[in-house]
């Protein structure tokens, strides 16, 4: 079997944990992976360079990496591909041309959600724009998408732009403050910190406005259970990690894809159309850890079962 290395630079957040579990499950389900070396910790690009080099040291055949940013780990990726190791960057693209990329389209993620929101508001009104962590690459990409949508709707203004740092408590506190300040706004776009925003409205008894969030278990269930909530969840599957492993195995098997870059385009699930409601109902899994995205698999890419990803066991465990 193959020896596959994984490098990830954020630990202790549901999305990333799901990604790792998806990688393990896919490796196991494929039956072709003998061992999975995972370097999974909180670090910056410089630290991730070390992790990737350690994986090279460990003699892996392929490395699936969720890069800290688009350029910072290029040097180590180049070293790996020079040694004949297959490198697949998931979630976030890298600029190193020798790597394969299987990325969630962050720009599109923001664009689609924002577009839905602006259309919902009839192209007129003010929105609260709750971004992620200032200075992070993914946040910057999403900002581009949001701005693109904004440009298409001249009637929409940004009432308030804040950074939640992707922290639930901070996002909730900020929303509370905005509500308390009596500021006028007609919709909220959030970058992944979503269910606490809905809570902030319901707890203060403020009428809900349309809210866009991600497909985390918590928010998706709110979309069906909270009365008067008009909202949309944009998919941002953590299972892209599993897809990355699948791609790496494919390449190791000698089936190189025609294109080095594959973008997984997000889908909008809104609870205002029957079509969207059906998608949400299908995705519901009330017992899933609330930080986990409910899109636990990517059709056409991943091969594991729900049980396998929940078991979160890799080959040899």
């Amino acid at each position: 079997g193959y020896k596959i290395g994984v490098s990830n630079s954020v630990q202790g957040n549901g999305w990333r944990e799901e990604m790792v579990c998806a990688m393990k499950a896919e490796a196991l389900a494929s039956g072709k992976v003998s061992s999975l070396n995972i370097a999974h910790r909180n670090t910056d690009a410089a630290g991730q360079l070390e992790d990737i080099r350690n994986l090279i040291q460990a003699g892996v055949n392929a490395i699936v990496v969720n890069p800290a940013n688009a350029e910072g780990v290029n040097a180590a990726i180049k070293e790996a591909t020079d040694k004949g190791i297959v490198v697949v960057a998931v979630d976030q693209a890298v600029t190193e041309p020798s790597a394969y990329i299987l990325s969630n389209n962050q720009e599109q993620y923001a664009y689609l959600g924002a577009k839905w929101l602006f259309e919902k508001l009839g192209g007129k009104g003010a929105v609260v724009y709750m971004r992620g962590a200032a200075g992070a690459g993914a946040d910057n990409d999403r900002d581009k998408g949001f701005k693109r949508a904004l440009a298409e709707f001249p009637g929409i203004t940004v009432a308030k732009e804040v950074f939640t740092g992707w922290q639930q408590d901070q996002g909730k506190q900020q929303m509370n403050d905005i509500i308390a300040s009596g500021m006028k706004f007609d919709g909220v776009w959030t970058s992944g910190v979503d269910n606490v925003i809905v809570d902030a409205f319901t707890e203060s008894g403020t009428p809900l406005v349309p809210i866009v969030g991600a497909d985390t278990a918590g928010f998706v269930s709110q979309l069906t259970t909270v009365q008067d909530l008009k909202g949309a969840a944009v998919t941002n599957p953590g299972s892209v990690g599993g897809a990355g492993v699948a791609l790496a195995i494919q390449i190791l098997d000698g089936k190189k894809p025609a294109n080095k870059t594959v973008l997984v385009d997000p889908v909008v699930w809104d609870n205002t159309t029957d079509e969207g409601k059906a998608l949400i109902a299908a995705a519901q899994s009330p017992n899933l850890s609330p930080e986990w995205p409910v899109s636990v698999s990517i059709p056409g890419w991943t091969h594991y079962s729900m049980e396998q990803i929940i078991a979160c066991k890799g080959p040899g465990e």
Partner: protein
Amino acid sequence: MNRLVSRHGWVMGLVVMLLVLAALAKLLQADFGFSGLESLARAALPFAFATAGMAIVIIAGGIDLSIAAVMAVVSVTAAVLMTGTNETEAVLVVVFVLVLGLAMGALNGALIVVTRVPDIVVTLAMLFVWQGVALLILNAPGGAAASWLRSLIVGGTTLPGVSPGLTGWLPKAIVFLIVCVAVIWIPIRRSKLGLMLYSIGSDRVAAFRSGVPVGWVRIAAYALAGLFAALGGLAVTMSTGIGEPIPGPYLLASVAAVVLGGVVLGGGRGSILGPILAVFVLRLVRLDLTLLAVDPNVTVIIEGIIMVVVVMIGAVLMTRTARQ
């Protein structure tokens, strides 16, 4: 002799640990060799510089919570300034960011002295300030680094006129680290300033009464920390080729390495060598765990346990010898 052991015992212990961990790596991975050492050295570089800076302020009786943020400011400044400049202009950029780091550190120190607010509060406040500055300079990872700068820490050492076989096994990154630390720290350690740094950490009142200009020495300590932080930030840019406005995990890591390196929190005691060795020990632990393919979440537990157990043993040994 006894005194020698009691003074340098800690450092010796770290060297032994370093050798054991390296041997373990070799055992786990038979072809662990130069490239492993080289990657380790490069990865350790920013940590080592941050730790050296932190060690100096801690020796001087302070603490610098803003060190990682200063690194980020330097990293983004260097990366932004080096975008589109040619190789020689990059030299100026390097000089500029080093001076910038020194100045930021000196400002930290001056604020502590002038406001009379405790070190930990001032540097905590400055942590936010420098983070903000880094974000204003660059709002997402980007920029570039001159290629000569990047190659400064890549590969083995080559000296003109010396056969590469002799020096080639030594990673450039280690040489770079040794040279930088030695050039900055050894003259200072030897000078009266070095003594003054230790003296204000040991007993600030006694130092003042012995005629030490306490305020200026504190500023100097923070300025030195700033300079080392600048080198650390530069090292980040050198290895990644870009600048990142979000500070890396260098704050707590450097405090941990300083303590693990035998410097006493509160000041006055310890060397700068111990903490730098501790950085390498911590890096090696991680390498060994990766080679062992330990579950990454378990790795965190093991790292924590190793840290705790090492300092426990060290502390117990220390109190033992102190009692005798």
